[in-house]
C-alpha cells in the first residue's frame, strides 16, 4: 500500500517528503478531532436526549412509563396521556391563557422600551441621567422584594384572577429601556435631523425611522421577554387562584398535587405541551435565540 498523504485543507497530495513524521502528527490530529466530536456528541445527547426521552414518554401508557427496564421508543404509542390531561386538567385553557398573557406583555414591553429608549438616547432634558440611573437600578432588586407589596396592590385593585394582573405589572422593562437606549445611541443623529428638517413629528420619526432601524435589538428583546414570560411561575402562583386562569407553568406545577402518587405520564405530557411552542420557535430562529439571549441575558 502506497501512502499518499492529503493536505487537510485542500485535499491535494502533499509532497512525498512530508510523509513519516507528518503523517503521525496528522493521525494524532484526526484522533483528537474524533475525540472532540465524541465528547460533543455526549454533551448534545445529555441535553437533547433527556428532552427527547420526555417527548417519547408522553406517547407511552402510564404503565409503560414506569416499566422496568425503561423503554426508549414507545412500544404501543398512544395519545392517552394527552387525552387525559386535556380532559381532566384544562391544559388547552392553560395554553390559551399563557398566550393571552405573553403576547400583550411582549408587545407592550417592545413598545415602552423602544419609545423610552428613543427619548433617553436622542433627547436632552433636565435630570436625564438621574432618572435613567434610578430606572436601571431597579434591575438589582430581586423579585422577592416587590412580591408581597405587589400582591397587596394588585389584590386591592381587584385584579386577582385576571389577565391584567399578569400583564400590567410586567409590561414595562427597565432592562428593555436600557438595551434599546444603548442600541439607539448608535443610530446616526443625522438621519433623525433630516426628518426634523422636513417637519416630521417626533412620533413620525420614531415610527418610520427609529423603529425600522432597531429591528435587531427589538427581536432580541422580544425573544428574551417572551421566554421570561412563558417561564413565569412565582407571580402567577401568588395572584392566580382559579383553575381556569392558570398559565402553563402554574397548571403544570399543580399536577403534582393532583394525585397521591406521582403521575409521571401527566407530568411529562404537561411539560411537553409547555415547551413545544418554545422549542418550535427556537428551531426556526436558533441563531437569533442564541444571539438574543446572550445579548440580553441578565437571567436564564
Amino acid at each position: 500500500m502506497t501512502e499518499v498523504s492529503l493536505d487537510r485543507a485542500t485535499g491535494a497530495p502533499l509532497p512525498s517528503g512530508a510523509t513519516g513524521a507528518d503523517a503521525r502528527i496528522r493521525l494524532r490530529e484526526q484522533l483528537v478531532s474524533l475525540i472532540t466530536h465524541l465528547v460533543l456528541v455526549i454533551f448534545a445527547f445529555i441535553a437533547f436526549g433527556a428532552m427527547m426521552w420526555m417527548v417519547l414518554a408522553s406517547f407511552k401508557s402510564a404503565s409503560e412509563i414506569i416499566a422496568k427496564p425503561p423503554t426508549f421508543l414507545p412500544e404501543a404509542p398512544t395519545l392517552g396521556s394527552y387525552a387525559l390531561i386535556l380532559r381532566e386538567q384544562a391544559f388547552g385553557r392553560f395554553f390559551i391563557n399563557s398566550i393571552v398573557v405573553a403576547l400583550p406583555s411582549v408587545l407592550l414591553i417592545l413598545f415602552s422600551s423602544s419609545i423610552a429608549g428613543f427619548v433617553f438616547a436622542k433627547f436632552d432634558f433636565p435630570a436625564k441621567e438621574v432618572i435613567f440611573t434610578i430606572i436601571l437600578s431597579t434591575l438589582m432588586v430581586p423579585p422577592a422584594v416587590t412580591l408581597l407589596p405587589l400582591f397587596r396592590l394588585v389584590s386591592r385593585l381587584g385584579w386577582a384572577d385576571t389577565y391584567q394582573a399578569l400583564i400590567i405589572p410586567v409590561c414595562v422593562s427597565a432592562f428593555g429601556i436600557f438595551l434599546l437606549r444603548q442600541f439607539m445611541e448608535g443610530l446616526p443623529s443625522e438621519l433623525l435631523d433630516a426628518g426634523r428638517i422636513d417637519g416630521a413629528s417626533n412620533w413620525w420619526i420614531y415610527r418610520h425611522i427609529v423603529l425600522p432601524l432597531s429591528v435587531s435589538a427589538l427581536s432580541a428583546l422580544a425573544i428574551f421577554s417572551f421566554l421570561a414570560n412563558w417561564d413565569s411561575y412565582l407571580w402567577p402562583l401568588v395572584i392566580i387562584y382559579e383553575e381556569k386562569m392558570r398559565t402553563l407553568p402554574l397548571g403544570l406545577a399543580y399536577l403534582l398535587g393532583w394525585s397521591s402518587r406521582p403521575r409521571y405520564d401527566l407530568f411529562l405530557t404537561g411539560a411537553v405541551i409547555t415547551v413545544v411552542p418554545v422549542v418550535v420557535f427556537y428551531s426556526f430562529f436558533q441563531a437569533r435565540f442564541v444571539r438574543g439571549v446572550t445579548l440580553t441575558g441578565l437571567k436564564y
Partner: protein
Amino acid sequence: MAATNLRERRWARFLNRYGFILAVLVPILLWFSIFSFGPILYALYASLTNTHSLDPSRARFVGLDNYISLLDDRRFLASMRNVVQFVLTKGVLNILLSLGLALLLERLRRGRNLYLFFIFMPVVISQVAVAMLFLWLYDPRLGLINYLLSLVEIPPQSFIRSTAQAIYSVAIADVWKTYGYAAVIFLAGLLDIPQDYYEAARVDGATRLQTLWRVTLPLLKNPLVLVLVLIVIDGVQHFTMVQVMTGGGPADSTLMPSILVYNYGLGANNYRMGYACAISFLMFAVILVVTVLQLRLFRSLYD
C-alpha cells in the same frame, strides 16, 4: 394681553421642546412608581414593621426587630446555608462544563452550530418543565438515573428525597438547564481572542496546557466574571425549580430565601409580611454587594 400672549408663546415653546419627552416619560415613570419604586419602598417600610400580609392596617413599627430575629431563625439560617451550597455546586459544575464545552466547540471548523442547537435547547425551555423532567429522572424507584446506576452495580440513591443529597440534586438539575448559556458566553469570548496570541505561544514552545493557563484563561477574565456574577445573582434569587421539585424539603434541606419569603409572606398560618420583607431585603443587599464588586472588577480589568 401682551402678557398672556407671552405666556402662551412660552408654553408653546416648552411644549414644542419637551412635549414629546413628557408624553413618553410621564406614563413610564408613573408605571415605575406604581409597580416598582412604590413596592420597593413599601417593602422596605414593611420590613421595619410587623405588617400582616392580608390586613396591613394593624401594622406596628418595630425598628430592626425583624432583622434581629432572623439571626436566630433556624429556617432562615438553613436557607442561607442551602443557598451557599447551591451557588457553589452550581458555580463549579457550570463553569467547568461550559468552559470545557466552549473550548471543544472553538476547535471545530464546522458543525459548531449543530452542536449548539442541541446544547442550548435546555436554556430556552420552561423551568417548571425541567423540574418535572428531573422529578422523573430522580425518582428513587422508577427513575432513569437509578436504573442506569443499577447497570453499573451502584445501589439506588434517594436524590431529592434525602436531606444529604437534595441540594446537590437540584443544583445539578439547574446546571443541566443553564450551562449551555455560559458556554455561549465563553465561546464568544474565545472567538474574540486573536489567533496571533496562540501563534506566539506556539513559537515560544508552550504546551497546550500552558497555552490554556497562560493565554486563554487570562483573556477570558471578562466572560468569567460575567458568568460568575450571573450564577451568584441567579442562585441567590432562585425559586422556581427548587419550589416545584422539593418545596424546600426534605426537612428544609433545599429551602431557599425566595421560598422562605413566599412561605412566611403568604403561607397559611404565617402571613408575616414584615418579616418576609426583611428577608427579601437581605437578598437585595447581597445582590447589591455582588453588583458593586462586579463593576469594580470590570473597571480594574479595563484599566
